[in-house]
Structures are given as structure tokens and as C-alpha cells.
């Protein structure tokens, strides 16, 4: 029986395993050094904040793996020996494979800051990171202040976590406004305000210079490059992005860039070795996506795809329209299609931005200057229906159509205040149109279902 070995028990590897099991009787093993069972990395923050216990982050009960004949191997892979088709684990034992899927995910970036490996300095990615944070910052007596370096999604999550234990947080962000490499200015500004509302000491446009140690060799302070200011702290969170976790493959002969290089079939340069998820790097980017996408759902989609190929239905990885979501403290964010920040904006791209005058709610719609084709939407504080926007993007609808039928796309819970009328009237006055929004229609919403 063909033996499929998957390195990594994250969403990509586990999805691949599940789909291979659905479609075949092959022997499946998953190797991981992180945890015994698959858990949802995105939920680690909720464990620290006390919303959940760690076991709640595990989407499958423990009997699931045996019942589905998926062998779980706890171990760290030191070497991939593709000539002999075997893995050598750090304990010295081997695992033979017929096909290998590399799904080792990411690790937090470190940019050579002095002191970056001191005790008290950590990222937030793995279960081990969570355990470490619990040890480093159990309360605001042990950790009198934390400094977070890097203004991205993990940085703001880490700030929220620490604030839940009333630990003072200084948040160092390189950009002049939070996440403005990704978000348009209006949205980025709204998040700045929200961060301050949560009593987080947000420092914009600053870089970390170095991390200083105390006499025991533990982090005690950071200094800021621009001002030279020294900020005393007990914990330093490094959250300046992630990069593929592939150091163990350096000598393997597998072609590496920043990640494991793969073609559209998710195959590496070596036969019978595939890479999926955060650690995979496309030779050429697909659509306007980045060659490496460290996003939860792309890991899952690559798992769904590679399973087909391994089970004899060879298909390309073809992600559909871009979408994503996140939560910044209390603000929910969703995006469908492409809305670029001022920095990344395409030449033909034009924005319509609306922000409510009371609530922290706003949207930005991107469309083509000439053709008016709808390109994408960002929403904060309003939930939108994925299916509707996916359909509009496929149908290449223009922005007026989106405005007219915006109520169909609303996905907020029942009885929530609706903002479509305000949004459309602002749009009308800005662009001289006379669109009147259509009432929500179940018929249209479910016409493709």
C-alpha cells in the first residue's frame, strides 16, 4: 500500500490527509513535533485570554485519527533523504515514504536585532509560543510592561491578549499608520483610533533598535532607533511577519526560495514530493496573490487540491477570488476581491470610502476608473456574504450594480442597524449617480444555490 507521509499537522497537512482518506485507502502518516493533535492556530489567543481551553482549539476529537486510519507520529524531521525516500527524525529513527507532503508552515521573522534571542523575547505562532507567553506574562505583576514589535495581524492579537490581563503594552509599528501597507488610509486611521481606545501605547513610524538584557541575561528593555528612547519591559513580542519554516530542507536537494518552490500542481522539483500551505512558494504568483500566502484558508485549499493529485485526479491549484477576514480588537474586518492601500494601488484603481459618523464602521470599495468594474471591497463592522461578492467578481459587475444590490450582500445578524442607505446616498453625492438600493431578495441571494 502506498504510504503518504505529511510533515506538519496544521490546517494544510490535515486537510490533505482527510481528503486523501476520503478518496483512497492509502496509508497516511502525519509527523509533527509541535502537538499530538491538530489544533487551530488562529485560536491560540483565545486560550490565553480564557475564552477557551486548549482542547477547544482541536477541531476533531482524539478518536478521529485512529478511526480514519491516519497515523500520528510525534517527532521532528531532521533530514529528507529523497534518494532513499525516507525521513530521518531527530530521535534517529526513519520513516519511509512513497509520497511526501511538506506542510511545515511558518516561523516568526527575526531581522537580526541585537538581543532577539534573549529569554523574554518571543513570537506568537506555535503552541510552544503560547506556553511561553503564559510563563513570561501570567499577570501584570510578573510582566509590568510588554513591547510588541511589528504592526500586523499577529501583533495586534498579541496586544489584545496582553491587555486582557491588564498588562501595559507598547506597540512599535514601523509604518506611519497601522497596517497601511495593506489597508487604505481611512481604514488604517480608524484602527489607530481603536487601538488607542484600548489603552495600548501605539508608537507609529518607529523601529526597534535593540533589546537590552538585565544582569541575569533576560530582556529588560528595548531602545527605539529613531528616538533612542529606552522602554523598560519584561516581555518583547516579535510579530514582524512570518516566513516559511524550511530550514531543515537546506541540504535536501529540494529547490528552495524563501519557501519550498512548487509548480501549479504543488509539486516540488523532486518527484513525489509536494509542498502546501504557508511553506510553499509558487514559481509565479497566481492572479494578484503573493507567491507565498500565509493565510489559513489557502493552506486548506492547497490541502484539498494536492489530495486530488495524489489520488490520481491531477489538478492545478487554482484559488478563486481573493478574500480574507480578521479581527482588530473589537473590529471585524472582511475583504473580497482586491482593495489596495495607497502604496500598492494600481493605476486604474479608484476608491469609494464611507465611514459612519458615530460607530467604528466603514467600507472601502475599489473599482476601475474607466470601466467602473468592481474590483473589491473592505468592510469594517459590517459582515458581508462571501457568495454574493464571489459571484459579482466572477460576473465582473460594475460598482453601480454593487451599490444597487448591496443589501443582498449584508451578512450581519438579524435586527442589526443597516447602513446601506447611508452608504449609497454618500456614493450618489460623490459620483453624481442616482442609484436607489434594491430591497434584499432571497431569490437573488440563493439563485445559484
Amino acid at each position, binding site marked *: 500500500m502506498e504510504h503518504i507521509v505529511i510533515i506538519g499537522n496544521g490546517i494544510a497537512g490535515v486537510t490533505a490527509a482527510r481528503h486523501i482518506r476520503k478518496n483512497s485507502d492509502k496509508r497516511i502518516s502525519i509527523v509533527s513535533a509541535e502537538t499530538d493533535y491538530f489544533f487551530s492556530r488562529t485560536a491560540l489567543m483565545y486560550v490565553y485570554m480564557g475564552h477557551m481551553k486548549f482542547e477547544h482549539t482541536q477541531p476533531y476529537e482524539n478518536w478521529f485519527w485512529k478511526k480514519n486510519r491516519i497515523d500520528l507520529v510525534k517527532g521532528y524531521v531532521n533530514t529528507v533523504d529523497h534518494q532513499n525516500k525516507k525521513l530521518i527524525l531527530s530521535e534517529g529513527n526513519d520513516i519511509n515514504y512513497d509520497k511526501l507532503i511538506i506542510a511545515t508552515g511558518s516561523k516568526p521573522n527575526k531581522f537580526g536585532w541585537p538581543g532577539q534571542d534573549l529569554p523574554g523575547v518571543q513570537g506568537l505562532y506555535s503552541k510552544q509560543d503560547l506556553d511561553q507567553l503564559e510563563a513570561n506574562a501570567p499577570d501584570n505583576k510578573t510582566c509590568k510592561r510588554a513591547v510588541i514589535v511589528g504592526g500586523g495581524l499577529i501583533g495586534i492579537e498579541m496586544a489584545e491578549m496582553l491587555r486582557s490581563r491588564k498588562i501595559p503594552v507598547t506597540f512599535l509599528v514601523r509604518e506611519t499608520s497601522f497596517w497601511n501597507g495593506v489597508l487604505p488610509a481611512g481604514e488604517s486611521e480608524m484602527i489607530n483610533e481603536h487601538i488607542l481606545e484600548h489603552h495600548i501605547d501605539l508608537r507609529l513610524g518607529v523601529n526597534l533598535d535593540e533589546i537590552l538584557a538585565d544582569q541575569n541575561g533576560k530582556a529588560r528593555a528595548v531602545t527605539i532607533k529613531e528616538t533612542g528612547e529606552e522602554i523598560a519591559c519584561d516581555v518583547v513580542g516579535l510579530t514582524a511577519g512570518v516566513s516559511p519554516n524550511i530550514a531543515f530542507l537546506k541540504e535536501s536537494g529540494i529547490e528552495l526560495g524563501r519557501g519550498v518552490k512548487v509548480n501549479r500542481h504543488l509539486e516540488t522539483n523532486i518527484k513525489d514530493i509536494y509542498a502546501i500551505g504557508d511553506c510553499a512558494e509558487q514559481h509565479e504568483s497566481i492572479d494578484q496573490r503573493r507567491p507565498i500566502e500565509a493565510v489559513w484558508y489557502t493552506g486548506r485549499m492547497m490541502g484539498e487540491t494536492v489530495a486530488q493529485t495524489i489520488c490520481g485526479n491531477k489538478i492545478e491549484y487554482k484559488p478563486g477570488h481573493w478574500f480574507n477576514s480578521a479581527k482588530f480588537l*473589537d473590529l471585524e474586518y472582511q475583504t473580497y476581491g482586491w482593495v489596495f492601500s495607497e502604496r500598492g494601488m494600481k493605476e486604474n484603481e479608484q476608491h469609494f470610502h464611507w465611514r459612519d459618523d458615530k460607530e467604528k464602521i466603514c467600507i472601502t470599495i475599489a473599482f476601475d476608473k474607466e470601466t467602473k468594474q468592481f474590483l473589491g471591497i473592505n468592510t469594517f463592522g459590517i459582515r458581508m456574504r462571501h457568495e454574493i461578492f*464571489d459571484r459579482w467578481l466572477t460576473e465582473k459587475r460594475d460598482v453601480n450594480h454593487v451599490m444597487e444590490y448591496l443589501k443582498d450582500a449584508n451578512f450581519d*445578524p438579524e435586527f442589526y442597524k443597516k447602513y446601506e442607505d447611508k452608504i449609497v446616498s454618500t456614493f450618489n453625492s460623490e459620483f453624481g449617480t442616482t442609484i436607489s438600493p434594491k430591497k434584499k431578495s432571497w431569490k437573488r441571494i440563493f439563485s445559484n444555490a
Partner: protein
Amino acid sequence: MKTIQNIGIAIFLVGLSIFASLPCIGSFNLDQSTFDEMISSQGIKSEIFIEDLKSKLVDKEITGLQALAPLVKDSKEKANAVHSKNKEWDKKIYKNSPELATLIRKKSGYGFIPENKGLMWFLTFGLGIIGALMFIIPQVVTLGKKGIKNDHIYHQSSTNKGWIAWLVFIFLVSFYLILYFKPEYAVNWTYLVDPVSESLSGNPAGHWFVYGFMYCVVMTVMAIRMYIKYRHNMYQMVRTTSVLFFQIVFAFLIPEIMVRLQAGDDWSYKKGYDFKNAFPLDYDFFFNWNLKELIAGGGLGMFILVWGIVLTLVIVPVMVYFFGKRWYCSWVCGCGGLAETLGDPYRQHSSKSLFSWKVERWLIHGVLVFAVVMTGFTLYGFFAETGTVLGIKVQSIMATYSFLIGAIFAGVIGTGFYPIFGNRVWCRFGCPLAAYLGFVQRFKSRFRITTNGGQCISCGNCSTYCEQGIDVRAYAQKGENIVRSSCVGCGVCSAVCPRGVLKLENGPEAGRINPTEVLLGNDVDLMEFVNKK
């Protein structure tokens, strides 16, 4: 703020301690005239019983925990043995002894508590309410900006099955045991609410009035907590208001006022009725005695009889078709109302294992079958005018159901176990009405929880906070809508979702159940290829 909250807790605990100590204290002394009055009002004709009980009780001092029911029971058995032997059937005593004991205490209490009802109310209910509100209202500030605030639920003893949770468990279970099985110890509590009861129905309070009043008070106080916690979520605000309204108006006020309106006039139906309590949750609706009372109850009695039948057979299923069973279970029902207010801090304790789901399906459908079969027996017995059907005494089936399901399951376990097994133990594992509504919701309804395409990140907040123990994430992470018979539509999965994935909605039936394997956002050909299988 913290100080106000701590003082609040202290005041609350004082009120609670006084309340909890009441069953153990107080003095009772039954004088001859009260005794005679009671005997005649109860229509007791047995001289043996009267003499025996008189020698034990009249002008004797009884205090606190001293039990009366066994004395009454002893006299009753003695008397009934003689009367049975002599075939003096009209003298036999059928009243149950805990109830007689309760009545005796109620009539014979004296001293500080019955003489200072208002003050005692303040020292128990009053302090409890003030203390609780002092703890709850500062949360407007302490919880911070509006949004989901579940911080530290798994760090706190009270909400993580720690010692506080076990104390609450012991308190609640003891409270229900007294209420159902030792009502004589609840007599001191009834004095506290006598003025309220008299102003509503004109009668002094019984222990069920204490329960009803307390139910409304607890729900109101905890609803304030809900309003603060979910102030960003209109669905929760509206829903909380709805359950509170139906509890206070339909379950509490209307039945009491009905009693008052009917007192003394020529209306022959003398009871209160909870117009929203549908059979088979209202399991004694078709009991022999109830049917007789309704039929003899003139226009109102007949209206209630017809209403009760139409409610169960037409209104309930039609509403479930349009809105899902949530319209009843988390918008109207009293059990649901308590679960959604007092029980909200414990919702995370419902087990999500597959094993629990199996147990759930056997138990809840078992109770439904039990209720239906029992009703079949009682109806047959009613129309055939017999007390024995298929060689089984109908009375004993009714008694078994009332004891096991009505008292132990719905009361003691259903609410007492909140801090340990979560707030919907009864609704999930036991309620026969929920089982019936569940069938309609699963097979013929427009209600579903829609999963928003491919946005799920499997974080598990939805499953963790589902009070009905549904593994919501298992569906959401496959892009599949949640259509489950047990879902009561509380809306909390949607509220706690950090990515806007879940929405409760009533839409067309077509495509409501949509099993998927590959989610929206991946290659369309692959989605079609995999999902059509």
C-alpha cells in the same frame, strides 16, 4: 469600580445567606381554632386522624428544621389503616402529607419573620437584587468597549467548574429539592412574598409562588447582565427582552391575575393558566383532572382546552416552519428564558463530544415517547372512564413521569446542574416539546445557520459557546450550513465568531442543507467535482 463590585458581592452574599438560612429557623405554634379551620377547609372527616394529629401538634412549639411531614404521614397511615379495614372510604385521607405539613406551617408560623414580611423581603430579595446589580452594572465600564467579552471565563472558579461553581450547584440542587419534595421548609420564604401574592391574586403565597416570583427576579437581574454584555448585538437585546416579557407577563402575571378576576364570580374555571406553555412540555395538560376542570370550567375552560390543542398542533409547528424552533425555545419559553439569563455564564459547559450527541438523541426522544404514551393512556382512561389501561394504573404512570421527568429532570438536574453541565441540560436532553419542535426544524423549516463561504478559520468559539452542545465548527469549517434539530437559535455562535461566518436566517428551503467538502474560494471545477459526490 472594582470596589463597588466587591461591596455588591458582599451585599448579595448577605442576602443569599439570610435567604438560605430561613428554612432552618422560625417558630410555629398551631392553636386549636386554626387547626379546626384547616381540617374543615381540607374536608377531612377522619376522627382518628384529627385526634392523633391534634395530640401531636396543637399548642406544641415547633421550630426550624423539625420535620412535620413524617408526623402527618404517620397519623394518616394510622387512620387510613382503620378506615380501609372498616370500609369507610369517605373518611380515608388522600391529601399528601408534605402538602398538609406545609399548610400547617404556613398557618401556624409566628414571630419575627411573618410579622416583618417587608423587612424580611428586603433582607433577602432586596439585598440580593441590590448586591447583584452593584456587581453587574459597573460592567458597562469594566468590560471596556462593546464587543464580545469572554475574557477569563476559563480562568474563573465560578465559570470554570471551580469551587464557586460547585457551591452554586449545591445551592441550586438543594433549593429544587426543597421546592419539589420538602415544601414545608419553604414556608418562611412564602411569608416574604405574601404581600406580592396578595396584591396579585388576593391569596397568600405558596411555595410555587415563591418560585415564580424568584424566577422573574433572577431573570430580570440576569437580563440586565445580558443587556450589558451583548450591547453591541441587537439580536441578543431583542431576544432577551422577549423571553423576559413572556416570563413575567405570560408565566407569572396573567395566571395570578386570572385567579383574582375569577375569585368569587360565577366563572367556574378558578385557576391560572400559562398561555404559552405548550404540551408536551406542559405534560399534565391532558391529565384526567385537568381535562375535567377545563370542561367544567365554562367558556374560559373550553377556550383554554381548544387553545392548548391548537397551540401544540398548529401554532407551534407552523411557527417552527417559518422561524425555526428558536421562536419558542429562546424567545418565549420559561425554561429557555432562565437558561439564557441565569444560565448564560455556564453555556460553555455543554459537552460537544459525539458520545454526548448519541446520549442526547436517545434521551430526549425517549422522554418524548414517554410523554406521548402517557398521554395516550390518560386520554384513553378519560374517555373510557377507567383508571386502569392495559392492566396498568394510569395514576402510577402519571406519578412516575411527574417525579422523574417533571421534578428530577426538568428541575433538579435541568437547573441545578447549570454550573457543571451547562445551561441547557433539560432543553437538550429532556424536553419533549424541544424534541417535537426539533423534528419540524430538521425536516420542514426555513431556518438554518448559514455558513459564510470559506471564511471559517476553525477557531472553535462557536462550538465552545454553543449551549446545546452542537459542534458548530464541524459544519462551518466545511462551508456547510448548520441544520440541527437541537439548535435553539440563541445566536451566540454568530455573536462570538471573530470572522463573521455565521448568520441565523429564515430563507428558502431549497439548498438549506448543503453538504460540502471543498469550500467556496477554491477552484470552481474542483468544488463542483468534489461537492456533487
